[in-house]
């Protein structure tokens, strides 16, 4: 016991020693954490390793690259943006840890684009308690759109129910009479998506779910084959989209795959499938941002330039486009919030809305709507290249109709940085 006492004393005294050095870190501007006259510190949690790292790990570096581009051009209201990226490995338990580190230790101004439905769901309460703005969550769960419960949380992606309704509308029009089935992640992502699909199509013929901790979808795909499915909707992260398509091919099951936007980046899928990449031909998905391979699009031109200069020329794919679009929207929000930046100020600015940018459909932000993009347009893969077809649709997560949205695309500002 004497030794226990000694160790206890030593450890606790050492911890006390740490406190003195650690405690001095907080800056003088006590009013708004993470904001000084020259800097804004924001943080994020991302799956840089683990089951969802394929593709998604490129998002945060792209966001950071765009911030570096803005910083090199004078920053926002004279402040440079520092983007702290934390790896949570798509494990909700790690997310708890890293978000606390960002908020309590690094004292970030806001959490930006934290990725994942299961991961981010667990930190909503913590962020609310600490009054940290939780902007543009990288997921389409409907949980982000609860202004009464979580006034500081805003989504970015079209929510999965909206997406499900749009995918199902396409299925209804194009594959009428065929047997439609569903494979989704066993969390709000899969459930919200299925809800959208079933709102339009009625009950699906068969539904299966998977968990990211078990990289084997053999039983699920086998069950879908046994059920005689002709169209399979996938609400999957990229690694599991590739796994599902590959597993289906292995057992000679060739349905029409219709894939959620978040699991459909062709570059990531082709890389994961390797030699089996031709299996992606004809796969239908949806998107709401310019496609990375559309070199003529002015947004892609801008992003390619930023990518080359500030992201050491990482391979352009839809994840890079996504990451930079998030950064663009955040800079718009900062500009709108004005020089006197506070946490309440940025939330007000986002709620005021009116942002126009790279999206094919507008973002929906208002005081009583915290969901992100309002709709999507369908894509298909031909000759290994994704392209848009048909028209952009918008709808809501309720019983509203799926309607065509037509508006002229907005071009980026000449210097690539949104004005105040």
């Amino acid at each position: 016991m004497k030794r226990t006492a000694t160790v206890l004393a030593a450890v606790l005294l050492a911890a006390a020693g740490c406190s003195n050095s650690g405690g001095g870190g907080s800056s003088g501007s006590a009013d708004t954490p993470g904001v000084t006259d020259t800097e804004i510190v924001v943080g994020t949690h991302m799956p840089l390793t683990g089951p969802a790292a394929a593709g998604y790990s490129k998002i945060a570096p792209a966001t950071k690259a765009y911030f570096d581009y803005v910083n090199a051009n004078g920053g926002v209201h004279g402040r440079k943006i520092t983007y702290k990226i934390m790896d949570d490995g798509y494990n909700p338990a790690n997310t708890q840890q890293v978000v606390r580190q960002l908020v309590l230790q690094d004292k970030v101004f806001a959490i930006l684009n934290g990725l994942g439905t299961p991961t981010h769901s667990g930190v909503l309460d913590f962020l609310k308690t600490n009054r940290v703005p939780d902007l543009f969550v990288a997921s389409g769960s409907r949980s982000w759109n609860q202004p009464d419960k979580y006034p500081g949380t805003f989504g970015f992606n079209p929510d999965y129910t909206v997406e499900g309704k749009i995918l199902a509308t396409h299925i209804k029009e194009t594959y009428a009479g065929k047997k439609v089935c569903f494979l989704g992640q066993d969390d709000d992502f899969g459930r919200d998506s299925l809800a959208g699909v079933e709102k339009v199509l009625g009950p699906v013929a068969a539904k299966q779910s998977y968990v990211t901790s078990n990289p084997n979808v053999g039983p699920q795909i086998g069950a879908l084959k046994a059920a005689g499915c002709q169209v399979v909707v996938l609400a999957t992260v990229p690694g599991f989209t590739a796994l599902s398509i590959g597993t289906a091919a292995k057992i000679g099951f060739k349905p029409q795959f219709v894939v959620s936007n978040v699991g459909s980046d062709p570059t990531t899928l082709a890389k994961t499938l390797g030699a089996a990449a031709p299996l992606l031909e004809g796969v239908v998905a949806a998107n709401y941002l310019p496609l990375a391979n559309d070199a003529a699009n002015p947004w892609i031109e801008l992003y390619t330039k930023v990518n080359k200069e500030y992201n050491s020329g990482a391979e352009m794919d839809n994840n890079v486009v996504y990451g930079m679009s998030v950064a663009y929207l955040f800079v718009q929000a900062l500009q709108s919030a004005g020089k006197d930046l506070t946490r309440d100020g940025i939330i007000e600015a986002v709620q005021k809305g009116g942002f126009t940018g790279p999206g094919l459909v507008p973002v929906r932000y208002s005081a009583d709507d915290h969901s992100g993009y309002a709709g999507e347009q369908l894509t298909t893969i031909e000759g290994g290249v994704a392209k848009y077809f048909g028209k952009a649709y918008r709808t809501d997560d309720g019983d509203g109709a799926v309607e065509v949205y037509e508006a002229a695309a907005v071009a980026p500002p000449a210097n690539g940085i949104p004005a105040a």
Partner: protein
Amino acid sequence: MTALQDRAGTKATDRTKAKKISPWLVVVAGAIIVVALTYTLPPFRTYQLATVGAYLCVTAGLTVLTGLNGQLSLGHGALMATGAYTLALWQNKFNLLPVGILVAVLVTTAVGAVIGLAAARLRGPYLAGLTLAVAVVVPSITSTFDETFNSDQGLSVMLNPPPESMTNEQWQAWLCWGGALVTVLVLALLTRGRFGRDMKAVRDDETAARLAGISVARTQVAAFVVSAACAGLAGALFAVIAQSVSPGAFPLTLSLFLLMAIVIGGLGRLSGALIGAVLLVALPAVAHEIGEAAGSQRLEGNLALTFFGVVLVVVMLAAPGGLASLRVPFTKSIPFKKKGH
């Protein structure tokens, strides 16, 4: 069980008072230091302090089981998960924290008794295999019964805000260290008495223990149950700190980390369990710092495991008894307070 505990407790304090510092004193001193720390540390350090407290509950129980009784468990992560999920389900239904923690401990104790009954019939690698299976099965259970456990996403835990006079982190640290100090106290009293001698006798030679009139199976089951109760408490505390539970929080690597931590700290010693608990919090943090300094955030996801491995190898080479066995050259007469540095 309680009768045994009381008897062991009183006897132990009587006999050893002259030789050793009373565990009561250590616990009171620990409590004072913890309270003092919660008022001086910045919030994130306080949060880490709370995590150390929660880890200490499980490492203390595990080191008694493995170090004193010789039973190797690779399944303590699963026992923690049992406690955590019990607390989450209880809180979301009744929102009564003290009772919830108690229920979590009781449920885990029951689960521990079942595993312990099987474990008492197994030896060495077979015992490790059984407990390993328990650890592996957690994610499957949560996804099979996803309507109750909500699969990989897990459950959020409904909690009332802490009393107004303290911050959330302070409250968490008090709660966790309250649990940890009670655990340490109970274990210290238990292991000093007859139960501790029984456990060691069984560990050293089962036949000799049986000849001496000790029921080997009963001792082993009792040790496992005590250790499971500690793991259940730790799990419940983790659920409170994180305000959520998910299978990802209790992976197989957690069980391995726990074992490595007590081995590095010093098997069979409560001081070793404390060192282990500190390492469980500190090493991933150090790995993160290194990953950040190296400019690659991708490193840190994998670095912690490497780190633990390296530390384990180094400690085993330099101090086979673990860090707690290292002796700093003190003269015996110096009272313990000054030994901190």
